[in-house]
């Protein structure tokens, strides 16, 4: 069974067309990440699924039931917000039980669910504290706990990690992945961070300007991007784009080469002048100019390369992607 089906969903705010004919499916138990640059409509799409915004047209099905006119609380969803959105006047326990009390669940059931969720998230020592007495990471866990106790058909995460610092972000990312395995629930996760998308997703939906650019597993998108946008968005450092004329006699197309596919080669086709070197220990990122174009090469290991140095890069031609002028991938 599918957890969520969207059929030609459109959303306009006045004259601004934010979501354009979105059609996609989320399978039961799948972890789907919506990713895209800011302003691409990914958060709006999530709010339409949650029912916080109405779709202007199109059909939304959750768990096989059309929910276009169903209020958020009856859609069988739970949402985790970027700003945590904990109720400041309720304790952690109060935050987690509020929705269940609204649903008039029996007391024993509520206690059981809270105990289970707080054990899962290590929140037991904090149940009687107030949100203002918790750290950022703890608050985020409470927000996740508040979603878990509802046992929803579909979890919605709206950039849940962007308020956390880098170290905590990585830990919480792993926690969310573990949680997905433990709960075996369907989850939709919105982020602008491609690392989060690559590491968490079963399936990535890349959005741009309110349109779905490509849907697929992380490695599918990485190895086989449909267009220049997807190719440039996924991967860090991002793919290098160079005009075809630079390496061939003629041609209007663009070629794309991933930084890790470039290597140093004395007779390589790309003559470059190094403008910056990032030495990361395990890797060395070389940022260089090929004529007027910036090129980033990711070399494995440590290299003694200095700024201003002239060198040549080579690449395997089967590792190069070709895109036409409109940005579509050429075979």
């Amino acid at each position, binding site marked *: 069974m599918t957890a969520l089906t969207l059929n030609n969903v459109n959303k306009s705010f006045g004259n601004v067309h934010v979501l354009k004919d979105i059609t996609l499916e989320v399978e039961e138990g799948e972890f789907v990440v919506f990713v895209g640059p800011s302003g691409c409509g990914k958060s709006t799409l999530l709010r339409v699924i949650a029912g916080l915004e109405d779709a202007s047209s199109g059909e939304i099905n959750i768990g096989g039931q059309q929910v276009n006119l169903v209020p958020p609380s009856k859609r069988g969803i739970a949402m985790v*917000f970027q700003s945590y959105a904990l*109720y400041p006047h309720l304790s952690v326990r109060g935050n987690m039980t509020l929705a269940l009390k609204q649903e008039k669940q029996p007391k024993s059931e509520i206690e059981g669910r809270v105990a289970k969720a707080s054990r899962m998230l290590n929140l037991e020592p904090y149940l009687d504290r107030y949100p*203002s007495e918790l750290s950022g990471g703890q608050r985020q866990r409470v927000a996740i706990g508040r979603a878990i106790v509802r046992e929803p058909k579909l979890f919605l995460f709206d950039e849940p990690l962007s308020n956390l610092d880098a170290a905590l972000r990585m830990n919480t990312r792993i926690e969310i992945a573990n949680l997905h395995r433990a709960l075996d629930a369907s989850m939709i996760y919105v982020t602008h961070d491609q690392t989060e998308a690559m590491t968490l997703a079963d399936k990535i939906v890349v959005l741009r300007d309110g349109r779905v650019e490509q849907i697929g597993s992380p490695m599918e998108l990485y190895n086989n991007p449909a267009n220049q946008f997807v190719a440039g968005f996924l991967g860090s450092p991002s793919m290098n784009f160079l005009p075809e004329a630079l390496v061939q006699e003629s041609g209007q197309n663009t070629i794309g080469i991933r930084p890790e596919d470039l290597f140093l080669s004395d007779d390589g086709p790309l003559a470059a002048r190094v403008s910056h070197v990032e030495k990361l220990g395990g890797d060395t990122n070389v940022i260089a100019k090929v004529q007027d174009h910036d090129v980033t090469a990711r070399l494995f290991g440590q290299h003694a390369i200095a700024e201003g140095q002239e060198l040549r890069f080579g690449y395997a031609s089967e590792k190069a992607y070709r895109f036409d002028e409109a940005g579509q991938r050429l075979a």
Partner: protein
Amino acid sequence: MNKARHNPLNMVAMHGALILYTLIALFPVFVILINSFKSRRAIFREPLALPNADSFSMIGYETVMKQGDFFLYFQNSMIVTVASLSFILLFGAMAAYALSEYQFKGNLIMGLYLALGIMIPIRIGTVAILEMMVATGLVNSLWALILVYTAQGLPLAVFILSEFMRQVSDDLKNAGRIDGLSEYTIFFRLVLPLVRPAMATVAVFNMIPIWNDLWFPLILAPAEETKTLTLGSQVFIGQFVTDWNAVLSALSMAILPVLVLYVIFSRQLIRGITSGAVK
């Protein structure tokens, strides 16, 4: 920590300025208080002297207690102030929430219309208000005052509160919606506690003019049984003879409840500022 806070010279200057301001603000109150305990002759001979064995007299308080029903006036003032404030806060907050939270046709126009009231003094409409009150039979009832004060306070309340309510996190309200709270529950349980400092501000701004008002009680409710404290104290002020003992005593007693209410609201204000924190 701010460095300026630790510099002793700055500390002295800061506290000096605050103490000076406090003294200036409290001086008239102090003069009223000490003189209310003095005999009439002592008030005029040495207005700034403290009451001593010679000049001490409770005559003012005795007059106030004997003449007119001081406790009834007091009760009237209290009812009018508390009821008006409750209505201003309740309706003001609800209107502000609707204006800031919901998109509907004429939202902006409605907001401007409500804000217009800030610029037009309500007293301009006194004659019309009086006619209205006569027509509805509300003259000489406390309701006349409560309604007028509510109308007078609403524009500023809506204006201030809607600004504050725009700042309440949307995520919080949406979290409530997903958790199945009704719009009323979201308003009363989530939004109102977060704008408590603004509510206290509005309450303080409105309370004092209402408590002290002479104009509308004199015009709309001058009957003996609906007199407010301020109007009641006027009996001691004559065109030719003024019973200063009684006036000062009445004023001293009138200050007290305002002070108590103010302390309550300002504590709310401080607590609201320190405990808000959404993130």
